[in-house]
């Protein structure tokens, strides 16, 4: 065997070792990548399972909050309507309620308290009675009612 053949064999061995070393390094890196991606996939699946029912729960919370807001608005409107005759007294002293306001037989000064004599239904009350009754059967709390 000539020396040139020996050098060629050594060169081929160097090339093979270099290729094998790099391929082994790439394989190890890919194995580590697969392991890490498996961990990430498990975490993502856990997150998906955790967050899956959140949308429905948030929708339900929003519906409840909305129904509560409407409940408060309707209650405030009804209270304001209930207080409307008192404001009408101040604005319209010539109405029928002005007589009751000036009467001294009321405990609270005759300003429409519970102890005052109920005034006869005037125009404001007639308007109030003409209005449709507020809908009370709303929200989840009236499902069984």
């Amino acid at each position: 065997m000539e020396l040139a053949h020996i050098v060629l064999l050594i060169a081929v061995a160097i090339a093979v070792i270099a290729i094998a070393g790099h391929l082994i390094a790439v394989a190890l890196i890919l194995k580590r990548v697969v392991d890490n991606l498996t961990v990430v996939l498990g975490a993502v699946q856990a997150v998906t399972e955790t967050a899956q029912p959140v949308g429905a729960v948030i929708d339900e919370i929003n519906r409840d909050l909305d129904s509560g807001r409407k409940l408060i608005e309707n209650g405030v409107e009804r209270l304001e309507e209930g207080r409307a005759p008192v404001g009408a007294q101040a604005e319209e002293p010539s109405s029928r309620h002005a007589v009751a306001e000036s009467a001294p037989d009321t405990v609270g000064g005759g300003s429409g308290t519970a102890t005052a004599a109920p005034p006869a239904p005037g125009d404001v009350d007639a308007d109030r009675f003409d209005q449709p009754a507020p809908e009370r059967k709303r929200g989840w709390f009236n499902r069984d009612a």
Partner: protein
Amino acid sequence: MWIGDAIFLLVVIPAVVIILRRVLTPAVEIGAYVEDITEHGAQFAPHLGALSELTTTRDLVKEVNADLERYVRALERVG
């Protein structure tokens, strides 16, 4: 024969090494990125633990609604 050996040693082997380096370098970067993703992505789940409290929030909102209606009715009776 010596010319072939010289070409193999001075051209082919460096070319192979360069090509393999061009494969290995992105692989190493991918490995680093994936480790980074794992480090930060795996911490996702513990931060979402509070989502289980949403059911408690929902129940509390229902209770508040029920009490709110009682409150509004009581206010109407008072008013």
